[in-house]
């Protein structure tokens, strides 16, 4: 077979599409591999918006201010060189999305932006409260063009099995057609854009159940390094529905929603009392902890004072979804809210070029760890996915195989059914120990419980998920301080002397090897 060198992208959400688009623009072929089509990606669920310092609202916003807010939001352990690139490129990325036809909210063609948590300026571009869906639709159209011209080959309904290595560097991937259940080998470098680790926290996350974290878990099991696993973002305002947490976007507060508890028959707006400057829009970690610390978990969100025009123009779809799933009309009733797991700041350890610790293997989006430090700002995830995807693509383009690589070979690997959630025997101790507040005792207890499990009763995927769960607990127990989303009752203070840096964990010879890596890395 003849053909041209090709890059394999695992995941067809925002980061994967961004990588495929970048490669297409360079004239490089890519295989876009995903268990379900792009319309099913978690990215379509992103609601609030995307940050870019474009200063459309006359508030003297600047790239420097976006940079500083992101570094501060991540409590000084996000990688500053990368955050510089992220924030500098943000305005151009949003302009590009506009050129692709994303219908961001605007007034007579002039972009408008909204407030989001952890930021003092109106910096978040949005399309009502379905920003992710609208960005995805535009990117899917654009990628379709490159499918038609032959540069992008889609493998929808194909799951990831493993990477192919040659002398410990990655030179291909094994995928499985989830319709026929046959497995195939594809050659070329691999970009992982497979999202967060929702399978480990069944029922507790706001995201897609298809984002299992299985790619990350597998890569960890073969020695690829992970970073900052202890930082799990609890979104302050979610509600339990069947099988998951229902997200009430930060835009609800960006547009004026107020958090309160009832005390003696009166509303007490605890966020506004305690944090007069940012109030309800404090960073997510702080807001989530404040909500969790209210007695009896009785926090309510008041949006009843919001203007009719805002409901109709900016929050119509949010209102519809809240009515449908919670049976409450937020324009006239309060919504009961509690924090839920929303984002994994940690993931595959990548350098500024989005290379992982394995040659030929790259990562982007939520499955990678680079920009968000100890806590991600609202509006920075889609930005990070788009910027990370294209950065990874550009790096992978320098590592193409010399020969043709678009031949596909069937390989005989037996199929094993695995549920999209880890067994309760793993999930329960992990959730208990990785709660919004943590301490040594619950974490070491949970680790011991996991170590006592018999992995031979598990499928291969569940064995890898168990290892990943242990890695998360090991990282969280090792960080003996409180920072961002990682809050410990036994170490409530930030410890910059020992921990102002990323954690890095590797699985080596049956051991979880954790280090706190203070060195700069490119």
């Amino acid at each position, binding site marked *: 077979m003849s053909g041209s060198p090709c890059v394999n992208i695992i995941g067809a959400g925002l980061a994967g599409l961004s990588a495929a688009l970048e490669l297409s623009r360079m004239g490089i072929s890519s295989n876009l591999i995903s268990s379900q089509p792009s319309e099913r990606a978690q990215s379509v669920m992103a609601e609030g918006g995307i940050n870019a310092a474009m200063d459309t609202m006359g508030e003297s916003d600047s790239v420097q201010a976006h940079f500083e807010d992101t570094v501060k939001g991540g409590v000084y352990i996000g990688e500053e060189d990368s955050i510089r690139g992220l924030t500098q490129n943000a305005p151009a990325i949003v302009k590009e999305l*506009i050129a692709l036809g994303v219908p961001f909210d605007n007034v007579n063609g002039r972009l408008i932006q909204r407030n989001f948590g952890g930021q003092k300026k109106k910096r978040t571009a949005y*399309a009502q409260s379905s920003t992710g869906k609208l960005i995805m*639709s535009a990117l899917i159209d654009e990628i379709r063009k490159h499918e038609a011209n032959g540069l992008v080959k889609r493998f929808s309904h194909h799951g990831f099995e493993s990477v192919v290595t040659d002398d410990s560097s990655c030179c291909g991937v094994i995928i499985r057609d989830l*319709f026929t259940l046959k497995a195939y080998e594809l050659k070329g470098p691999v970009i992982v854009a497979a999202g967060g680790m929702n399978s480990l926290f069944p029922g507790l996350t706001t995201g*897609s159940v298809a984002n299992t974290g299985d790619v990350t878990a597998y890569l960890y099991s073969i020695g690829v390094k992970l970073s900052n696993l202890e930082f799990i973002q609890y979104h302050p305002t979610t509600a339990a529905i069947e*099988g*998951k947490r229902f997200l009430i976007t930060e835009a609800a507060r960006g547009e004026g929603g107020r958090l309160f508890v009832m005390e003696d028959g009166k509303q007490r707006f605890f966020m506004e009392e305690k944090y007069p400057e940012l109030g309800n829009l404090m960073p997510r970690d702080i807001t989530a902890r404040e909500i969790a610390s209210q007695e009896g978990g009785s926090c309510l969100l008041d949006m009843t004072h919001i203007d009719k025009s805002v409901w109709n123009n900016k929050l119509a779809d949010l209102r519809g979804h809240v009515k449908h799933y919670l049976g409450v009309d937020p324009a006239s009733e309060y919504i009961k809210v509690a924090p839920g797991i929303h984002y994994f700041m940690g993931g595959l350890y990548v350098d500024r070029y989005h290379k992982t610790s394995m040659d030929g293997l790259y990562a982007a989006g939520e499955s990678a760890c680079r920009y968000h430090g100890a806590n991600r700002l609202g509006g920075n995830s889609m930005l990070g996915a788009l910027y990370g995807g294209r950065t990874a693509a550009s790096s992978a383009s320098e590592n193409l195989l010399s020969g043709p690589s678009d031949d596909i070979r069937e390989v005989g690997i037996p199929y094993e059914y695995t549920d999209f959630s880890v067994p309760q025997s793993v999930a329960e101790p992990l959730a208990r120990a990785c709660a919004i507040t943590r301490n040594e005792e619950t974490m070491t207890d949970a680790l011991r419980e996991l170590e006592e499990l018999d992995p031979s009763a598990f499928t291969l995927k569940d064995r890898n998920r168990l290892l990943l769960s242990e890695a998360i607990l090991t990282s969280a127990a090792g960080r003996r301080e409180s920072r961002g989303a990682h809050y410990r009752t036994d170490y409530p203070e930030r410890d910059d002397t020992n921990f102002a840096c990323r954690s890095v964990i590797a699985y080596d010879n049956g051991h979880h090897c954790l280090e706190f890596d203070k060195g700069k890395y490119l």
Partner: protein
Amino acid sequence: MTYEITVLRRKTPEDLPYEQTFRYEARTGADTVASALININRGSLTDVNGNKAEPIAWECSCLQKKCGACAMVINCIPRLACDSVLSAVAADDRIRLEPLRKFPAVRDLICDRSVMRENLKTITAWIDEEVSLKDDKDNILFEAGKCLQCGCCLEVCPNFYAEGRFFGMNAMVPVAGLLEKLPADKSRRLRKKYSKHIYADCAKSLACHDICPAGLDIEKLLVNSNAIALWKHLFK
């Protein structure tokens, strides 16, 4: 509340389908077909006759009607499993689940909907020009960007079949957005394709409008696109 959930099953596309019924004890009034399938698969997987069963194959992702993955035929009506509360869809406490029937069957409740993506390629659903921000006062761009590509509209359409020239509303909706984005002199190609693959064979039953799980105003989008594709450019 206990429900009897009957699933139309097959292991491979070549197999003849068979029915298997499971008894499911709803945990709350909010239990949906999606949560029932999740719990049945995690449970003992024994059918009403006491036979061991294989896990039921189905697709899901967001579980809150934002992704379209879990579209299936539920008591004869195509809808999203995550949007189907058991008590609301059951008839005499019985629920019958089948895959969408307009697409090739794959396994159990999974069917191969890739014809929808292929049709969007054939109709050239993309733009070649950069566009600028536009005041979307009729919400055309916004609604057109929200199609889930679930396939429910095709299931109820009297005109759509998988190999046909008519592509159905899952193609119309994205193209409606593209036609609205583009200036008239840049949309010639798309207008032509639209006329051939949408306008020509749509008999306007509008069953799609009523069934759409995303609640899209398909009639509005259709009227708007028909106007752009067929005559609006003549009056510039």
